[in-house]
C-alpha cells in the first residue's frame, strides 16, 4: 500500500490557499533588505564611468577621502588583494570567451555605469556628496554598440583584452537536410526580427548589507537575492573566507525575475569592503544606477525562415540569431544561456523534422545582458509564431487551423524536437481547443470584420509555447557552474505536534512558503496553518538551488514532499509502537495518526511528539525517535520538465497615431499538478504583463556612442495599470511522472508567449493596411513607419 492510497481527509494541494506572508505586506510589516540597518553601518556610493569605453587616465580620490562623514574611498587597487577576479564562462559552451572582472574598473572602463570608485560614508547623502569630489579622467576609446558592426573584422574591440575580438560564442545546431528541404519546399516564409533590450525594473532595487566581524572572520550578508546559497559560495571563494563562515540571508525580496541571481560588481565590492573595514556596509542602488548596472536582457537580431509543404505542414526552420550581450559574459550563469535557449526553443510546439539554428553572441559596450524571466522563450516564440502566422496568410489558413495541423499530437508523446529536446508529455491540442472556447474566437472574428468596415482595426494573435522548467544538472552544473541542481528540506514535528519546514527554495512573492505548507500539510495530515516554512537563510535552511528557471514548485515542492513523507514514516513508526500497530497501516489525517482499519484507534500528533520528545523512555528500546528529517532531491528523469500552453491577444491599432491598445488577453496553460490555483494564475498574469511590456513599451535605448538615454522610470516605459488588459486563464493538467508531486514550473509561462501573441495580434490588425511589424517594442513610431505614414 503506498502513501497516496492511504490518504484521507482534506487535501490542500490544489486549493487556493491565501498567502500568510501577504498579510505582513498589507500590514506594512514586510522586512526588505532596504529596511535594515545595523550599528556602525556605512553606506556605499559608486563613482561610475560616464563613457561607454575608455582608459582611465586619472583617478584622484584624495579630496573625496577628506570629505565630511567619509570613512574610506576605495579604488580597484584597494580591493585587489581581498577579492579574486571572476570570469563568466562555462565549459559546455565550447569555445566561449570573456574577459575577467573585478569589483572596480582597473584601467579600462567597459560601459556607461562601470563602477570605478566606491565611497563609504556615514550616510548615503554624504557618500554622494563625496562622490562629487572624485576626479576621474577617461581617455575615450571607440565604443562598440551595433552587433553587426561588432562582428566586422575591422571593428574596434569592446574589451581590449578579449581573446577573439567581439565574438563571445558561436554555435550551430543542425539536422541533416535543411538546405534540401528549403530548396524543395512548396512554401518558404522569411522575416527579419529585432528584439529590443529591456530590463527587470524590480520595484525594490538590488540591495545588500554586508556585515563582516573580524573577531570571528564571519561574514553575514543580508541581500535581496533569489539564490542565497550561490552567493554564500561566491563570497566565500572570492573573498577567501571559510564557506561555513559566510551566511547569506534573503529577507523579503522586492521582486527578482532572474535579475537578482547574477554576480554584480557592486555587491562584490560591498562584501569586500566590509571584510576590509570590519564594518557593516550597505548599498542600495538608486533608480538611475539600476538602469546602468542591473542586467539587461533579450536584444536579439534574428533572420529566420520556415519551409512548409503545400498543405501547410512545417518542414523546417533556419534561424540566425545575433545576440549582443555587453562587454563580457555574466557570472556565474554566462550571458550565452539566453541565445542558447532562443535557438533551441524555435519551433518547439511543432512536428518539425528539420532545423538549423546559428547563434553568435557578441560583445559590445553596454550593460551586461543575462537571464531574465523566461530566458530566450519570448524570442523563440515570437519568431516561430510570426512565421507560422505569415505562412497561414500565404496559404489562406486560419491561425488555429495551421497550428492544429502542426502541433505535436497529445497522444504522440514522448517526443523529441528537431533541436533535441525530449518532451515527456504535452497538451497542445487540448490547449488549442480550450483557448478557442475561452476567447470566443469565432465571435471575435465576426466583430473584427464588422469593425474593419467602420475603420476600426482590431487584431487577434495566438501563440502556443513550450516552457523549460525543473532543470536538472545538465543545465549549468555540467558546464562547471557552482549552481546547485538539487534542493533540500528539513521537516520537523514540533513538540506541540505542528510542523516546521526549512527549505532551500526562496520566496519573492510567488507564494513559495504557502505551497510548501500545502504540500507538507497534506503529507502530515495537518492544516497548512500548522506548518511554518522558513526560507532564505543559508544558516538555517539546507543548501540548494533556490528559485530560478521555474524550479521552485517542481523541484522544491517535490523535495518538501519527500522530506515530509520521511517524517510521516517516522511518525507512523513511533505511533505504531505506541498503538501496537504496523506503521504501514496508519494514516496521518486531521492532526492525528489513525488506524486505516479502525478509525477509533488514533492518537494526536501532539501526543506522538510529546512521547517522542519528553517520554522516549516509554517507547521500545532502540526506536528511532527522530522527528526532524532532512531530504534532498534533484530531478533524475528527463533533463527538463517541459510545460506548454497557448496565449491569445486582442488589440486595437490606431493607424493614425500608431498606438496599440491591449483589449484582452487569454492564456491556457499546462503546468502539471496545480498546487495552488490562485497563485498559479497570478504568476501567469504577472508574467503576461512583463511580456506585454516588452511587446509595446520597454526598451533600454542607447545612442551610437553607447550612452543609455532613458535611465529613469519617466523615460523607460514599464507597463502601468491603465495600459494593461484583463487576462483570462484556463488550465490543462498533465502532471510529470518524473516526480510524485507531478508539478512543473509556471513562473515564466506568462512571459514566454505574451509578446508573441501581441505581435501577431498587431500584425493581424495591420494586415488589411498592408503593413507588418517584426520589431519589439512595437512603438507608435515603428508602427507608423510600417504603415509608411512616416517615411524618414
Amino acid at each position, binding site marked *: 500500500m503506498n502513501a497516496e492510497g492511504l490518504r484521507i481527509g482534506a487535501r490542500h494541494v490544489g486549493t487556493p490557499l491565501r498567502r500568510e506572508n501577504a498579510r505582513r505586506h498589507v500590514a506594512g510589516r514586510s522586512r526588505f533588505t532596504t529596511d535594515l540597518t545595523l550599528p556602525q553601518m556605512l553606506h556605499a556610493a559608486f563613482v561610475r*564611468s560616464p563613457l561607454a569605453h575608455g582608459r582611465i587616465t586619472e583617478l584622484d580620490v584624495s579630496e573625496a577621502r577628506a570629505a565630511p562623514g567619509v570613512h574610506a574611498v576605495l579604488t580597484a587597487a584597494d580591493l585587489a588583494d581581498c577579492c579574486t577576479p571572476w570570469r563568466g564562462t562555462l565549459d559546455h559552451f565550447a569555445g566561449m570567451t570573456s574577459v575577467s572582472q573585478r569589483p572596480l574598473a582597473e584601467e579600462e572602463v567597459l560601459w556607461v555605469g562601470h563602477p570605478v570608485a566606491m565611497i563609504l560614508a556615514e550616510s548615503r547623502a554624504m557618500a554622494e556628496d563625496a562622490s562629487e569630489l572624485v576626479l576621474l*579622467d577617461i581617455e575615450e576609446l571607440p565604443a562598440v554598440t551595433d552587433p553587426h558592426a561588432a562582428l566586422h573584422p575591422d571593428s574596434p574591440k569592446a574589451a581590449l583584452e578579449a581573446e577573439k575580438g567581439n565574438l563571445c560564442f558561436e554555435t550551430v545546431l543542425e539536422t541533416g537536410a535543411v538546405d534540401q528541404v528549403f530548396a524543395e519546399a512548396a512554401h518558404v516564409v522569411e522575416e527579419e526580427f529585432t528584439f529590443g533590450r529591456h530590463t527587470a525594473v524590480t520595484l525594490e532595487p538590488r540591495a545588500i548589507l554586508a556585515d563582516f566581524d573580524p573577531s570571528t572572520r564571519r561574514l553575514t550578508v543580508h541581500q535581496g537575492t533569489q539564490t542565497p546559497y550561490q552567493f554564500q559560495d561566491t563570497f566565500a571563494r572570492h573573498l577567501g573566507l571559510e564557506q561555513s563562515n559566510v551566511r547569506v540571508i534573503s529577507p523579503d525580496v522586492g521582486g527578482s525575475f532572474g535579475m537578482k541571481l547574477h554576480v554584480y560588481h557592486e555587491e562584490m565590492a560591498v562584501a569586500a569592503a566590509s571584510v576590509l573595514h570590519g564594518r557593516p556596509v550597505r548599498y542600495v542602488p538608486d533608480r*538611475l544606477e539600476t538602469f*546602468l548596472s542591473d542586467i539587461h536582457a533579450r536584444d536579439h537580431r534574428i533572420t529566420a525562415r520556415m519551409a512548409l509543404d503545400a498543405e501547410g505542414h512545417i518542414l523546417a526552420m533556419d534561424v540566425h540569431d545575433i545576440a549582443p550581450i555587453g562587454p563580457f559574459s555574466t557570472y556565474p550563469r554566462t550571458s550565452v544561456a539566453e541565445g542558447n535557449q532562443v535557438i533551441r526553443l524555435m519551433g518547439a510546439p511543432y512536428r518539425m523534422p528539420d532545423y538549423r539554428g546559428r547563434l553568435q553572441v557578441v560583445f559590445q559596450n553596454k550593460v551586461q545582458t543575462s537571464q531574465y524571466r523566461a530566458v530566450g522563450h519570448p524570442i523563440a516564440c515570437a519568431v516561430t509564431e510570426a512565421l507560422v502566422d505569415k505562412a497561414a496568410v500565404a496559404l489562406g489558413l486560419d491561425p488555429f487551423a495551421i497550428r492544429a495541423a502542426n502541433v505535436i499530437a497529445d497522444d504522440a508523446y514522448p517526443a523529441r524536437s528537431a533541436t533535441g529536446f525530449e518532451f515527456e508529455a504535452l497538451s497542445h491540442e487540448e490547449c488549442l481547443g480550450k483557448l478557442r472556447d475561452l476567447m470566443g474566437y469565432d465571435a471575435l472574428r465576426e466583430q473584427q470584420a464588422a469593425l474593419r468596415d467602420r475603420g476600426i482595426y482590431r487584431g487577434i494573435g495566438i501563440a502556443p509555447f513550450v516552457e523549460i522548467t525543473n532543470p536538472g544538472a545538465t543545465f549549468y552544473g555540467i558546464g562547471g557552474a557552482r549552481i546547485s541542481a538539487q534542493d533540500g528540506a528539513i521537516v520537523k514535528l514540533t513538540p506541540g505536534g505542528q510542523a516546521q519546514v526549512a527549505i532551500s527554495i526562496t520566496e519573492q512573492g510567488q507564494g513559495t512558503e504557502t505551497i510548501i505548507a500545502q504540500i507538507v500539510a497534506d503529507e502530515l495530515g495537518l492544516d497548512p496553518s500548522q506548518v511554518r516554512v522558513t526560507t532564505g537563510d543559508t544558516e538555517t535552511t539546507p543548501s540548494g538551488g533556490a528559485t530560478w528557471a521555474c524550479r521552485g514548485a517542481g523541484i522544491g515542492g517535490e523535495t518538501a514532499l519527500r522530506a515530509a513523507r520521511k517524517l510521516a514514516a517516522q511518525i507512523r513508526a513511533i505511533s505504531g509502537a505506541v498503538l501496537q500497530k504496523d506503521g504501514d497501516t496508519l494514516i496521518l489525517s486531521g492532526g492525528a495518526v489513525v488506524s486505516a482499519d479502525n478509525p477509533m484507534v488514533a492518537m494526536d500528533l501532539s501526543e506522538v511528539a510529546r512521547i517522542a520528545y519528553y517520554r522516549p523512555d516509554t517507547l521500545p528500546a532502540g526506536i528511532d525517535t527522530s522527528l526532524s528529517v532532512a531530504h534532498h532531491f534533484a530531478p533524475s528523469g528527463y533533463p527538463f520538465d517541459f510545460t506548454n500552453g497557448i496565449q491569445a491577444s486582442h488589440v486595437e491599432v490606431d493607424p493614425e497615431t500608431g498606438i496599440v491598445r491591449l483589449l484582452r488577453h487569454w492564456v491556457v496553460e499546462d503546468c502539471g499538478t496545480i498546487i495552488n490555483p490562485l497563485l498559479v494564475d497570478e504568476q501567469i498574469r504577472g508574467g503576461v504583463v512583463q511580456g506585454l511590456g516588452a511587446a509595446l513599451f520597454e526598451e533600454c535605448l542607447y545612442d551610437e556612442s553607447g550612452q*543609455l538615454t532613458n*535611465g529613469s522610470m519617466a523615460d523607460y516605459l514599464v507597463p502601468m495599470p491603465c495600459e494593461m488588459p484583463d487576462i483570462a486563464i484556463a488550465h490543462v493538467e498533465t502532471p510529470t511522472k518524473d516526480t510524485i508531486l507531478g508539478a512543473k514550473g509556471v513562473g515564466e509561462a506568462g512571459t514566454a508567449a505574451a509578446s508573441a501573441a501581441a505581435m501577431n495580434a498587431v500584425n493581424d490588425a495591420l494586415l488589411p493596411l498592408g503593413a507588418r511589424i517584426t520589431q519589439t517594442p512595437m512603438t507608435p513610431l515603428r508602427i507608423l513607419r510600417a504603415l509608411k505614414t512616416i517615411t524618414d
Partner: protein
Amino acid sequence: MELTGRYELEAPPEVVWDALFDPEVLAASIPGCETLQAEGPAAYTATVKLKVGPVSARFKGNVEIVDAAPCRSCRITGKGSGGIAGVAQGASLVALEATATGTVLTYTADAKVGGKLAALGSRLIESTARKLADQFFANFATHLKSRQENAA
C-alpha cells in the same frame, strides 16, 4: 544631432575673425562661462556653469579653435566634465562670408553628452543644445557689436 544657425554681423570678416580669437569675447560668449584661461594661442581651459531649467552643473574642461582658415572658417571644440552630472562635448564648424554690410556667420554644431545627463535628459538634449548654441552666437554678436562701439 546636428544644429545649424546663421547670423548677420555688421563687421567685416577680419574683425569677426579677430573677435573669435579674443579670449575676452570668447569668455563673454560661452553661456555660463565663469573662467577662461589661455593655454595656447587658441586653446583654453574653462569653467562653465550651465543652467537649463532643472539642470545646473559646473563643467570643467577645455575649449580649442582648430582647423583655422583665417577669415574664412574654423572649428570650435569644447569638452568638459561635470563630475557626477556627466560629460559634455561639442564641436562647431564656423564659416564667415563677407557681405555688403559685414559678415554672414554660419555654423553647424554637434553636441554630445554622457553619463547622468544623457541618461536623464534625452527628451530635451536637442532643445538644450540648440539653445546653448544660439546663446553662444547671439552673445558673440552682441559683444562684437559692443567691441566695435567701444573701438569707435
